């Protein structure tokens, strides 16, 4: 019954109604340490010539922002065809989480920097409960307007060298957008998940998710700003259909390397 939203209000439910099947399963799963933990890694590859990103003309704070070569970051492909900013995360609600990583508030703060009139990183990953520190390394003032669906939206002024902390109590099915109303070209995404199991690919397209439970079949979801849910790719040399970007994977003892996950340019049109 609570299968699809066990993370919502789960604290209250744990206290008041432990009898609900799903909740007790989560509790049980949470309290039993899995025998082993391992890493999932791989690399997203663009099956075509790397597209040239379009330049952005800064029309606000030109004296500062005009100096930086700003480009549209929707689709960033490296020289060796790695696709940056692909998001991969565990979608299964039923997942054994490493006991040290369960509590997001104990994790190191995630950082979103307003730097060179863009957001760094362009796509970020935050666990519920984890602090997100929004910084401003620019000499000009910014604001960071976070449009969430389930969490309270926020929009704080971030002065030069200032910072603002935000936490999220609920996970979001769709990455939240962050924009700056002063500099309209600035846009970032935040992936907000109930566990630490997610990653955003680096500039070369590679990712690593550490401390996954070994031998547990988990449903992962793949998302990209331009490509949406990546529902078609070549994995292990085989054409794979992943409805809504959902794919079941099991991490082996010692870790699993998916190798190259090759995606057709047509998904990014």
């Amino acid at each position: 019954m609570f299968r699809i939203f066990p993370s919502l209000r789960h604290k209250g439910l744990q206290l008041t109604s432990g009898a609900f099947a799903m909740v007790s399963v989560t509790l049980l799963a949470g309290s039993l340490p899995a025998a082993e933990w391992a890493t999932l890694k791989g690399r997203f590859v663009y099956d075509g010539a790397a597209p040239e990103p379009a330049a952005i003309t800064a029309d606000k704070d030109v004296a500062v922002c005009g100096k930086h070569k700003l480009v549209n970051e929707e689709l960033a492909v490296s020289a060796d065809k790695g696709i940056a900013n692909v998001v991969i995360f565990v979608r299964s609600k039923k997942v054994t989480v490493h006991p040290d990583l369960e509590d997001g508030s104990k994790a190191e703060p995630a950082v979103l920097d307003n730097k060179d009139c863009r957001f760094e990183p362009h796509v970020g990953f935050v666990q519920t409960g984890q602090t997100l520190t929004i910084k401003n390394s620019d000499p000009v003032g910014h604001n960071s307007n976070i449009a969430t669906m389930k969490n309270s939206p926020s929009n704080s002024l971030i002065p030069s060298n200032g910072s603002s902390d935000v936490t999220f109590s609920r996970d979001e099915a769709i990455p939240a957008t962050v924009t700056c109303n002063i500099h309209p070209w600035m846009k970032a995404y935040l992936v907000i998940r109930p566990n630490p199991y997610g990653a955003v690919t680096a500039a070369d397209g590679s990712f690593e998710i550490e401390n996954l439970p070994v031998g547990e079949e988990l449903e992962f979801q793949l998302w990209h700003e331009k490509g949406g849910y990546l529902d078609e790719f070549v994995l292990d040399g085989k054409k794979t259909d992943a409805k809504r970007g959902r794919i079941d994977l099991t991490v082996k003892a010692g870790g699993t390397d998916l190798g190259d996950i090759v995606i057709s340019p047509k998904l990014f049109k």
Partner: protein
Amino acid sequence: MKMLVRTLDMEYETVSAFAAQAGFKTPSGDLIRRDTRGHLSSGLFPVWVLGGVAVFLLLLTTTGCGKTAAASYRLNMVESAKQRLKPEQEQQVATILAALFGTPDEPIAPSECGLDAAKLHLAAGPVRSDIVGRKNGLYREHCAHCHGVTGDGMGPTAAFLNPYPRDYRPGVFKFKSTERADKPTHADLVMVLRNGLAGSSMPSFALLSDAKIDALSEYVKYLSIRGEVELALMRAFFELDDEDQGRLPEDREFLIEEIVLPVAEAWQAAEDALIDVPEMAADIDMAASIAKGKELFYGNKANCVKCHGVTGLGDGQVNDYDDWNKVVLQAHKTVQGGLEQAGEASTWDMDADEADEHRAELAWLDRFQKVLDGNALPPRTIRPRNLRQGIYRGGMRPLDLYYRIHAGINGAPMPAAKGTVPPEDIWHIVNYIRSLPYDFNGTLGVDKPMVARDRL
């Protein structure tokens, strides 16, 4: 315009269908030969007899013996199209909503929402009296023509107003004494109803009794909670697993716990979450405070100048949208982008599956476009407030301006200064802002008061 025509259309269609059934002449002069039960008639009756029957029946329908159709809530079609809901999923949302919140004539609300049924009764339904001297149906009498029966901000007059009337369904309200992301308190809503919103089409309802304003505020909360629950339901389909086969669980416990409570609790929490405003020092040196406020206004910390402009006329950032308009704007972009892309593709290059997918995508885009044409007003940019007019939507008390600067304005681009600008500095900015309408000293290169009309 469309909205107005549609509302009238409904009645027009009912009437003309009736007339046709009764045997009115069509414009081409043919007699529609049907009797009142819809059977083809033999044509033996002269036209005037049939005409007379029609007039009689028309009178019946308009003088009260016939029943007017019960008012119904409109589904959030833009969100439905965005989430690609199927007709049966829309039906499920409507069914769940009706079970939880009733109808515009018979509103109910889960007890968890903490809404007062007597107040809702007073505000809901058609305008009528049940006790001599007591009028019910206040919402439809005073609000629905702009805000719509559903509270979607799309009543018949909405398209003619700028800014558009508030759409309550996302549960976002601008003018309040709580933090940016929080709900307004009941007293905040009462204040908006009593004072109106200066500079917008929202009038003051100060002539209504306290009890009536109270009932209407409660009803706005009801519509807002209902709208947020609708949004949450529509978005929940996306999170279903394959084995759910595209249906949401319908047990009440799930719906209340997972969907209704988060919304209801936010409303209740607002009542105790007022912004703590330290009083402005009584012996403040006003000239110095205004000067400090000016510095902050132009400075890189508060950064007011970026949007409100060097002149304070609200012309610094004129290409931005508020959250309500952004939803529609984004939807238009999705449809246009999708159509452009689809235009480049040809089914010749596709296998059967791809071609099916392509056609399904086109059908969705076509439907989305129709939804935007019929269920959304054209998006408009938002204007940062012109600070030289001394007209402030959310109230002109220094306290109101303090709230706006401290918390920002939810739903609008205005960010919160909280945590960045200390309270005493917020008071300096308030004092500077309040001095701007009287700032005729020629610093703008003119020797007369700056009026927005002259500049824009």
